[in-house]
């Protein structure tokens, strides 16, 4: 195992789980910590690495009042053993055979499953057009910056909800209806839509997609707990 710094509050953890059966982009693992007195705490973390990569990467944001993430971001050291179960989940995964455009929308560390999906899109040579709309608080909070650089067949649009860089010419502010109309695949394309972020973020964005004419059945969501920040 190895731990690297992704942002001031976020760490990337590379694991080599024994007997890993392989995963699908978008799946998660459950990480369980056990205290000396037997108390256990378990949390789910999305896998950031694509299926083609032998190592499994997690990207974990430190939640100050969390029971698991402060250990993972602050205490964990290379070579430590971690109790991990997975891969888990067949719902919030890359739509391998959708045939239509794919629209991804992330708030904060909700971008992690999409890091895996975009890498899979690239390594599998998929011809499906994919777009990511990613809302981050500030430039310093951007996760997986290198992996999210736009490439042929994939577009990435960033918006900053608190502070944008001085020379920023892209969108600013929370993802609202106007931003979706300007920067996401239109209803005429009937894209498969995947939204991941905090519960308020996911529910606000879902409402706006439906309001601009997307079918609710085309939208899949994954919510995570945390700071209550809606970025």
């Amino acid at each position: 195992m190895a731990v690297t710094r992704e942002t001031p509050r976020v760490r990337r953890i590379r694991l080599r789980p024994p007997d890993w059966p392989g995963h699908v982009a978008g799946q998660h693992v459950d990480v369980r910590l056990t205290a000396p007195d037997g108390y256990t705490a378990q949390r789910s973390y999305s896998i950031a690495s694509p299926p083609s990569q032998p190592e499994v990467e997690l990207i974990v944001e430190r939640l100050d009042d969390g029971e698991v993430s402060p250990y993972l971001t602050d205490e964990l050291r290379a070579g430590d053993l971690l109790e991990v179960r997975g891969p888990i989940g067949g719902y919030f995964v890359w739509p391998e055979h959708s045939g239509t455009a794919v629209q991804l929308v992330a708030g904060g560390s909700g971008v992690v499953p999409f890091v895996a999906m975009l890498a899979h899109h690239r390594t599998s040579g998929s011809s499906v057009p994919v777009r990511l709309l990613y809302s981050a608080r500030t430039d310093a909070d951007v996760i997986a910056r290198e992996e999210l650089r736009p490439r042929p067949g994939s577009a990435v649009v960033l918006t900053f909800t608190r502070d944008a860089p001085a020379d920023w010419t892209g969108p600013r502010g929370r993802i609202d209806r106007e931003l979706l109309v300007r920067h996401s695949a239109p209803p005429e394309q009937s894209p498969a839509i995947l939204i991941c972020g905090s519960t308020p973020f996911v529910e606000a964005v879902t409402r706006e997609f439906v309001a601009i004419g997307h079918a609710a059945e085309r939208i899949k969501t994954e919510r995570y707990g945390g700071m209550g920040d809606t970025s």
Partner: protein
Amino acid sequence: MNASDSTDTGRLDGNVLGGPLAELFAADLTVATVACAHCGDHAPMAAFQVYADAPALVVRCPGCAGVVMRCASDQRGVRFEMTGVRLLTVTSSDDQA
């Protein structure tokens, strides 16, 4: 997904049930269709609301908010209550994405 890692997690969704339910069932039930016994609405289990801050995971219908399932796992074992589920449908296709 990044966690639900808080002592005050609030509301999540059924994606988080994948691990706990894998202790009991061979099929991935997060992609199964669940019909609510209270209102009759149905949706994939992953789209149900999950309250993770109770002693058990409490699963509520996205339509009527009625409790459909409760799942608790600790050192004593696993307890799973699903009186709020009218019908659970697992399709046989291995390509449910």
